[in-house]
């Protein structure tokens, strides 16, 4: 059945190519229908775990090439949520592609993204994983950069890093294949585990290849620069997908391979250094996550481009999830997965809201926007709830997942990791508020006076996402129960949870009560508001000029919009500590280019030079052969 779904995706994608360009939105409708169907099947499979499917199609060069799929709890969870969210995005995209001279091929490649998405999440062996991984990389490359010049620079990093990552992964897979003669993931990590005591160097090397493979995809330090570039330049609806879903593949890879490996090491700790109850490797990786989140937070505070800001926020959130996952306790892993899913939901909401803003205003720099909340209330509310969730404020879902992460960190005694997460979480509040203010609050520029709310078709996914954020925040059990079955598949203790209460060793939280408390308080405040004397509506500029015509004072609304360099003094604090990674990569690229140029130029030097080099090389070879043996 999995195979049929994948095949039908491919077929429908080709079918969609026959749609004429004027009716481009019809492709997106096809895409939505496909997603809906997939979602239906996924829903049917919610209890049929460990059902597997195998397609043997090639037996070449002494190797068996087959696609093996298995529905694991982890894969099911990821695929269900990703497909669901993609479905919401696709509804948004239908509207986005009506009328506009939209790119023809995006939906075509998006089909492949979904196909590879399912393939990755249900892959039972490395080969399947890798094939779909590559498919995902290439198709996303074409979606991010579908034919405009600027986005190529952005895609550069994405492309180079993910290709490098994929090749490292391939290297690791090759080593494991060399050791086990099979592509099975499970035998892979058990073999690697035994290798740790036999050949530590090689095993560390293999582990690092996998880490590089997965971490490049999930944009952890030092690969954290691509999201800001790629998210910012990608089509707006695709940014939502990129940030909500695609960046999670790396984490899925971690959960698929590295976490079981480290769990093995943790349970049989004779082969590795153990610090603080977890393997050193794992500890380092959680630190990488924490540092990523802190750095990404500061970078987000600095950025003025709204999509870049959201992208950095994504990186920071991935940092939390990574930190949490590599704590290796059941709370940690549950919190990590929970964070991944909640982040997918609220970041989709945020990006869709941003896409809606851009759909109406065609503007990405935040200081050129402002006051849109008065014109686009639904978008504003979506964004508001999104940032409440992103900042981890109850009763939204981001809070529940962060709570889990804190429980894991605190009960595992990681004070410094906790403080790092806390720092970036507070910073998240800073930059998210900045976005809220600069885009939706403050002064509405005159040019946006006749901006309208986005069409209803675009509002639908926003409503659903708002409800979803609230629902999963108030009833975290909805997500945590499936997560428990994931934990069981890792042979871990499931976390204690009911639909609305989360328990931990340190405390317990009843989200429903939290929500009701907040509602009660709001009601209380509202009563007070009603008690007070009714307010009067006054235009802001009238207020400043005491009722006179603001134009006489040369006042415009833009002048009163404080949005550019919002946290400038704060940013200046870090001037002396700033190391710009992008600059580092750029200078690396420049160095490589210079070297290449040097070679190239020496290739076209004069005639004598070439023969000189020839003789020189000959002499070198001869010296090797003659003197070194």
């Amino acid at each position, binding site marked *: 059945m999995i195979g049929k779904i994948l095949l039908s995706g491919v077929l429908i994608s080709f079918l969609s190519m026959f749609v004429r360009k004027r009716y481009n939105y019809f492709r997106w409708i096809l895409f939505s229908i496909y997603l809906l169907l997939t979602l239906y099947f996924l829903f049917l499979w919610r209890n049929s775990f460990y059902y597997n499917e195998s397609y043997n199609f090639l037996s070449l060069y002494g190797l068996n090439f087959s696609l093996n799929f298995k529905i694991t709890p982890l894969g099911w969870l990821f695929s269900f949520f990703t497909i669901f969210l993609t479905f919401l995005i696709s509804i948004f995209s239908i509207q986005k592609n009506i009328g506009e001279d939209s790119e023809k091929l995006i939906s075509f490649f998006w089909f492949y993204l979904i196909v590879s998405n399912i393939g990755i999440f249900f892959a039972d062996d490395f080969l399947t994983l890798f094939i779909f991984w590559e498919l995902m990389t290439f198709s996303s490359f074409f979606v991010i950069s579908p034919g405009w010049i600027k986005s190529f620079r952005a895609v550069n990093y994405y492309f180079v890093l993910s290709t490098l990552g994929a090749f490292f992964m391939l290297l690791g897979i090759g080593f494991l294949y060399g050791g086990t003669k099979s592509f099975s993931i499970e035998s892979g990590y058990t073999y690697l585990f035994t290798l740790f005591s036999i050949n530590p160097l090689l095993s560390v090397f293999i582990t690092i290849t996998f880490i590089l493979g997965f971490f490049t995809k999930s944009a952890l330090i030092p690969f954290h620069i691509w999201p800001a570039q790629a998210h910012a330049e990608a089509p707006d609806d695709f940014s939502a997908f990129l940030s909500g879903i695609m960046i999670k593949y790396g984490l899925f890879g971690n959960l698929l391979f590295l976490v079981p490996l480290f769990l093995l090491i943790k349970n049989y700790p004779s082969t590795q250094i153990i610090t603080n109850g977890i393997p050193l490797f794992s500890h380092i990786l959680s630190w990488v996550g924490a540092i990523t989140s802190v750095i990404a937070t500061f970078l987000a505070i600095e950025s003025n481009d709204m999509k870049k800001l959201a992208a950095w926020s994504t990186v920071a959130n991935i940092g939390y999830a990574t930190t949490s996952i590599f704590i290796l306790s059941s709370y940690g892993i549950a919190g990590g997965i929970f964070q991944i899913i909640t982040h997918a939901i609220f970041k989709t909401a945020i990006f869709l809201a941003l896409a809606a803003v851009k759909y109406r205003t065609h503007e990405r720099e935040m200081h050129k926007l402002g006051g849109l909340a008065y014109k686009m209330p639904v978008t504003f509310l979506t964004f508001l709830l999104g940032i409440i969730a992103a900042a981890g404020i109850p009763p939204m879902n981001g809070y529940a997942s962060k709570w889990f992460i804190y429980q894991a960190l605190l009960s595992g005694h990681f004070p410094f990791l906790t403080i790092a997460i806390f720092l970036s979480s507070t910073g998240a509040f800073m930059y998210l508020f900045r976005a809220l203010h600069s885009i939706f609050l403050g002064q509405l520029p005159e040019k946006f006076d006749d901006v309208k709310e986005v069409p209803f078709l675009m509002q639908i996914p926003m409503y659903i996402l708002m409800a979803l954020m609230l629902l999963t925040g108030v009833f975290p059990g909805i997500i945590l129960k499936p997560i428990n079955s994931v934990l069981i598949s890792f042979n871990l203790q499931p976390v204690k949870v009911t639909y609305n209460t989360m328990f931990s060793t340190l405390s317990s939280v009843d989200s429903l009560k939290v929500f009701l408390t907040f509602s009660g308080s709001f009601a209380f405040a509202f009563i007070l508001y009603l008690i007070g004397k009714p307010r009067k509506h006054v235009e802001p500029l009238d207020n400043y000029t005491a009722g006179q015509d603001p134009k006489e004072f040369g006042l415009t609304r833009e002048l009163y919009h404080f949005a550019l360099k919002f946290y400038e003094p704060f940013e200046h604090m870090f001037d002396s500590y700033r190391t710009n990674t992008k600059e580092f990569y750029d200078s690396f690229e420049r160095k490589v280019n210079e070297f290449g140029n040097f070679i190239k*130029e020496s290739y*076209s*030097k*004069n005639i*004598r030079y070439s*023969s*000189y080099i020839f*003789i020189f090389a000959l002499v070198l070879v001869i010296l090797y052969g003659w003197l070194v043996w």
Partner: protein
Amino acid sequence: MMIDNRTLYIYSFIIFLIGIYGAITNRNLIKILVSLSIIETALNIFLVSTGYINGSNPPILHSGMKLISPNSINISDPLPHALVLTAIVIGVGTTAIGIGLTIKLYNHYKTLNVNRMGDKDEL
């Protein structure tokens, strides 16, 4: 006169290396081609000397040397001569092409100095 084969080899090596040195240090294209010719000459000497037998006759039957038989074979090896013949002709061909190209290049640059033949044009 006794000439060792080895001595011949060494002579040919020396000539060869002179050619190599000339080919990689000369600035004049014609001189480079001449150096290549020197290399070819060295090669011919080397190839011939692999078949050289001291004191033997040339491998041509004539009225002076009426017969050769398995028991009394006193001729130098004819095969390297054949090889050398081929090598000479190939050398001539290469040199001809080289001179043609040189003429062409001279026509473009009006100089035979390789250093002045624009390193970076048409990059």
